[in-house]
């Protein structure tokens, strides 16, 4: 048996080590891709063995180095982080399969650079998931921002560079201006930044201060894309689709909401917040973001843009669920991180699949496409249902928990927001499915293209299948979440 420490080091270092081999095998593309796939498989094995320990009730820890007195790089795996690491490592594998199909199918340049930065981004995501204090979280949060920047600007065009500037500008400025001061402030107030069961802040620092800190985190964590800090997300859509899929639908944005959930649970503690907060501003901000983003998504014709705004709205579900502060809604928040990850990655995979096969990017061009690309559009339909929250998909589960939470604290605002946004979700996803399967192609001719390359189809079928499987067999995630709620009380 390997020790906990070694496993944690492996989980973070495997992708980093992989970058070296990817760089070395630069000229042998097949070997290079094998390296990526192999390290993704290894990462899954490592994360899986950690998962077994967490399920057994352990919390593996690792103190790395102390770079400021009292502040060290410290990793501790609690249930929520475990869940996030599972998602990230598993989807890295699927996404790598997809990337191979996509990058080759579209003859993208600089593929080696692409795989290298991708691996670094995964390593930092795992680092965020396992972080045991705010400072470690912050370090990896920044690494994630910086390592994804070259991916966003991958095309190197003027557009891509402008988008990259928005991306970097918003994410770095919010983190440095709001997130970092909040961390230092907490360190001054509490003398520590460790994530602790029951929180590290107490009532006597004053209600106003707690509220300001909460807001600093909500906006400082720009990756959570709470409006008006959301602009980077649509901008990042200039990146190649696998980047949008894994990073801007899963890893980066989920790192944002994950951090917020983790901070609310382990820094503030829900009990403290429900004592202190009279008007739940965070709840209203999240609700507003959900609705506004959905309305924008409804009007967007570019498919990826529509998905981007859908992501913004779905992220705020997590924030909203957290802000309800009921244990069951926090379970819902965590479940939604999981459900939305698989659903949204499928949708992006499908968008990329359509682009690879047909070079089409607009919703209005998709009439009748379902006949030519049945697998892609089938997966798209399943994922859409998950977004809307229809059984038998994972999205239903998480919405169920969130709604239960909303009812338990009698927050009619939250209930109303969820109902309205469900309608809006249906409003912007169902027409696409309808057009794809039931409408005739515009010019009446037979469509001249087929399904996308096999790796792409394979990847999106897998994720769509998992969306359904998660509904049928949610035991493992629920077990983790029960541990999480156990920690909170």
């Amino acid at each position: 048996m390997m020790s906990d420490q070694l496993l944690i080091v492996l989980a973070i270092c495997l992708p980093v080590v992989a970058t070296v081999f990817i760089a070395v095998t630069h000229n042998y593309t097949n070997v290079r891709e094998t390296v990526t796939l192999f390290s993704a498989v290894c990462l899954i094995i490592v994360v899986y063995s950690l998962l077994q320990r967490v399920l057994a009730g352990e919390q593996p820890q690792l103190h790395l180095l102390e770079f400021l007195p009292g502040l060290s790089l410290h990793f501790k795996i609690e249930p929520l982080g475990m869940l996030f690491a599972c998602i990230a490592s598993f989807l890295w594998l699927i996404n790598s399969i997809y990337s191979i199909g996509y990058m080759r199918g579209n003859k993208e340049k600089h593929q080696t650079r692409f795989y290298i930065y991708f691996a670094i981004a995964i390593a930092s995501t795992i680092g965020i998931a396992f972080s045991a204090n705010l400072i470690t979280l912050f370090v990896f949060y920044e690494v994630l921002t910086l390592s994804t920047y070259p991916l966003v600007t991958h095309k190197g065009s003027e557009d891509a560079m402008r988008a990259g500037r928005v991306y970097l500008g918003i994410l770095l400025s919010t983190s440095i201006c709001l997130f970092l001061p909040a961390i230092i402030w907490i360190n001054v107030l509490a003398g520590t930044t460790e994530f602790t069961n029951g929180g590290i802040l107490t009532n006597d620092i004053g209600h106003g201060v707690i509220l300001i800190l909460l807001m600093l985190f909500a906006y400082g964590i720009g990756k959570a894309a709470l409006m008006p800090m959301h602009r980077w997300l649509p901008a990042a859509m200039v990146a190649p689709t696998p980047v949008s899929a894994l990073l801007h639908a899963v890893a980066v944005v989920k790192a944002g909401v994950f951090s917020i959930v983790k901070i609310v649970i382990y820094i503030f503690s829900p009990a403290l917040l429900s004592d202190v907060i009279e008007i739940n501003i965070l709840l209203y901000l999240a609700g507003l973001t959900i609705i506004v983003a959905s309305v924008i998504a409804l009007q967007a014709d570019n498919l990826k843009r529509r998905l981007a705004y859908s992501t913004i709205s779905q992220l705020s579900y997590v924030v909203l669920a957290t802000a309800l502060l009921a244990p069951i809604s926090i379970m819902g928040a965590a479940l939604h991180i999981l459900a939305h990850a698989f659903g949204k990655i499928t949708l992006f995979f499908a968008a990329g699949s359509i682009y690879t096969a047909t070079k089409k990017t607009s919703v209005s061009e998709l009439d009748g496409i379902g006949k030519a690309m049945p697998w892609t559009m089938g997966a798209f339909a399943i994922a859409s249902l998950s977004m809307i929250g229809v059984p038998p998909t994972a999205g239903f589960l998480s919405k169920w928990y969130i709604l239960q939470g909303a009812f338990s604290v009698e927050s009619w605002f939250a209930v109303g927001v969820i109902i309205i946004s469900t309608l809006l979700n249906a409003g912007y996803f169902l027409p696409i499915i309808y057009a794809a399967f039931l409408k005739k192609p515009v010019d009446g001719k037979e469509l001249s293209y087929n399904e996308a390359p096999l790796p792409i189809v394979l990847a999106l079928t897998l994720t769509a299948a998992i969306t359904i499987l998660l509904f049928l067999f949610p035991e493992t995630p629920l077990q983790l979440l029960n541990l999480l709620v156990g920690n909170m009380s």
Partner: protein
Amino acid sequence: MISSHLPVLQVIIPLIAAPICVILRQGLLAWILTTLVCLISLIISCVLFNQVLDEGVISYALGGWFSPWGIEYRLDKLTIFMLLIINGVATIVLLGAKESVADEISSDRLYLFYTAFLLNLTGLLGVIVTGDAFNLFVFIEIASLSSYAMISIGRDRRCLYAAFKYLIFGTVGASFILISVGLLYDVTGTLNMADIFQRLPDIENTKTVTTALIFFVVGIGIKAAIFPLHLWLPDAYNYSPSIVSTFLAGTTTKVFIYVLIRFIYSIFGHETVFIQEAFNNLLMILACAGILYGSYLAIKQDSLKRLLAYSSIAQLGYMLLGISLATEAGLAAGLIHVFNHAIIKVTLFLSVVCIIFYTRTDSISQLSGLAKTTPLLMVSFLVAGLSLIGVPMTAGFISKWYLIKASFESGYWGLVLVIVFSSLLAIVYIWKFVEAAYFKSPENGVSKLELNKERPYLLSFSLFIFVIANIYFGIDSSLNVDMANSIAHDFYHGF
């Protein structure tokens, strides 16, 4: 035996080496001699470092004449902290200087450059070790006069104007410092810093002492390029040979910040009434204004050297900010930044020295696509740039952390805002170049330039050391942070 004379050797060795350089009259030999001298100087300061840590304050009577008759050299923790910074920077920069200097200064003047360099080092080290207020003025003048010479030695004719401007400003500043020292001598009857410190409390509210403080602050403000007395700095950094800018950026302004700290804490005394409120508020306002002004102007520059010069003005603001908090944590934060900024700015300047060596230009618009030609060099710049911005795991982050923490502890919210906002501005001006180098096509940039085929190995080596230092001190900051904390602790709780 010799170990007891180390304080004076610190100053004497470079002073003696300077005329030998003139006798050698040959660039390469002069370089070897100067590098050796720097190395010896560094070793001496390391030995002194250990001595002071083991035995406490060292007092050395120059020529065997004890104070108040003779000049006292006084070495406490702050002294050795600064000695280490200055000698470290000087040695490593000089190690890589040969190639760039040979490229930018005509060969018949090379030995003069090394002579001026040694004199400058003498001056800077002398300022740090001396415990005598008038002697300090003398060393300030040695350092300043030699730096005017170093700036004006380049091929670019504009450096003459820059040097002249610096000369005028610098002389005014030095005169003010002299007036201040004179006034203090007048009322206390001594030039020894420790004695002045003891006698001042009896007369602390007299107009003479206040006047002395004002003259001193203005004088040192000019020398250290504190906003709004910084006007000489951008030209001096921009037009002088790039190695000179590197050295000045890493050492001179730091030494004058040291003088400011020394005067506040070891001469006037930080507990004195008049140094408390108005004075600190003034420093704080100037610091903030300097931070914002420097960062803003840095964004607008096209020349990399000028950009870094304005950035230096902003970064000096950070150090001043720490000092102006007038708390133990604030002083420590300021000192930590003195150390870290020396590393960061020298790394950035050395990268620019390399860039100029390859391309003969430092204009951002002409350097687009540079990363394809010199990838490793751009990585160095990037690491140092991230460090300047204050990204975690780099030295700059440590500085930011302590500065923000100190501001929080003193309850100054506004300062936190200033610090984080100027970090954003730093992102803008660093990214301006990074983006051009990495993401713009070389067609309108580097491809048009005639690149130097030579490879500056020594220069790259120096740069490499500094890049590693940026990361090392971001991960294990115990050396500088512990030193700074203990210096601040000593000043606030006695030795």
